[in-house]
């Protein structure tokens, strides 16, 4: 079933278990394209699980999931390259430099050398990481890793951004810089997991609040 273009994410009765433990239970959602969804809830309420399912990194256990018009999990392959995912792990190789990591990602996403080079330079400049980009990631602080990870997540200019606590490890200046790449913007569809409800609500058009056991707070 193909969703209309206006709907970016549609969930119906989504559930996921880890063994006997219920991580998500009966999550329903409709998120329009170009809108921001804030996902709130205490630790262990299934926020990261939800994000990983939307990113096609986890299979949904129950219910129906449609992302950018593709039904998951059977149409996972259609979404590859259309999602920008920033999780708890930066997904960076420690023994490569920041720039080499981004070049590797660019090649995986099929960007040609010139276009990739220009984008990498621009994004590194934007995140004020140009000077340290040729150092190995293992030499970076947690905040610097997060800055490079943000560059990685948006390098291929995805249609949907899935951001799991994107501000973690960033100083106030870093947070401000990050907003330019992953903050709210016209036409940018975002799902943001946050532990800062006030800020998240202020930046989001929709809020999904989860509680223990992965149930939605009504």
């Amino acid at each position, binding site marked *: 079933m193909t969703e209309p273009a206006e709907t970016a994410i549609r969930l119906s009765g989504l559930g996921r278990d880890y063994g006997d433990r219920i991580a998500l239970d009966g999550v329903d959602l409709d998120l329009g394209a170009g809108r921001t969804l804030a996902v709130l809830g205490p630790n262990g309420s299934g926020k990261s699980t939800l994000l990983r399912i939307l*990113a*096609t*990194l*986890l*299979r949904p256990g129950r219910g129906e999931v449609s992302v950018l018009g593709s039904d998951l999990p059977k149409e996972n392959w259609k979404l*590859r*390259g259309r*999602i920008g*995912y920033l*999780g708890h*792990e*930066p*997904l*960076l*190789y*420690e*023994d*490569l430099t920041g720039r*080499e990591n981004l070049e*590797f*990602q660019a*090649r*995986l*996403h*099929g960007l040609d050398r010139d276009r990739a080079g220009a984008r990498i330079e621009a994004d590194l400049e934007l995140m004020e990481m140009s000077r340290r980009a040729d150092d190995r990631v293992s030499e970076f602080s947690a905040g610097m890793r997060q800055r490079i990870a943000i560059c*990685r997540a948006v390098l291929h200019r995805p249609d949907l951004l899935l951001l799991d606590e994107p501000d973690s490890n960033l100083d106030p200046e870093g947070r401000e810089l990050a907003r330019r790449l992953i903050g709210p913007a016209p036409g940018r569809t975002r799902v943001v997991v946050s532990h800062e409800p006030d800020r998240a609500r202020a930046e989001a058009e929709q809020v999904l609040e989860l509680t223990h056991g992965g149930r939605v707070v009504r």
Partner: protein
Amino acid sequence: MTSSFTAFKAILGKDLRTELRTMRSLPAMILFAVTTFIIFRFGLDRTVLSGSLAGGVIWMTLLFAAILGINRIFLAEREEGGFDAIRLAPVDRSAMFLAKAAALFTYLVVLELIVVPTFALFFLPQWSGLIPMIPVLAGANLGLAVLGTLISSMAVNSRARDLLVPLLLLPLVVPLMIAATGATAPLLEPAGPTYDDYGTWLLVMALYDGIFCLVGYTVFEFLLED
């Protein structure tokens, strides 16, 4: 979709660059093999080996050295999120399988470039059997690389991966080792190489390699699922 060849080159290039920079696998493999030869030399109390004993010693040593590399081939993907990065990218996942197998094959070639002459120095009175050993080494390397990549990808998510890799690999690699030692033994006879069943053993290795290339290429996509 990014072309599989582009993804293959990117992943292989990343792995070789990382190994050149960190030297995490190859030095350990080489040191293990050379030390094992020293132990064999004193343990067997012989300065000359030939025939099936020579074949057995060299292949057992190479196999166990290879396991050190196989154990580590997916470690960065597991610990640094490489699996997720690949799964998010528009690439055929079998490109990762082929790139990892190619990286492992390269490690084995480098290992053998050092270890086989060392073995000859330690144990062989004449070296004329080494040149015809090249196809045997290539065939065994391909099998070890393909099967090792497959086993390692299955074991990498387990905490007991250091145990699982040899436990799963060794029984499956028995036919390959029989063929490799069978082809090698006549090449290392004291009177010079003979070619009894040489072609047959190479054919067995080619068949083995073909089967596991096909199996690995087919199932790897499913092994990356959560």
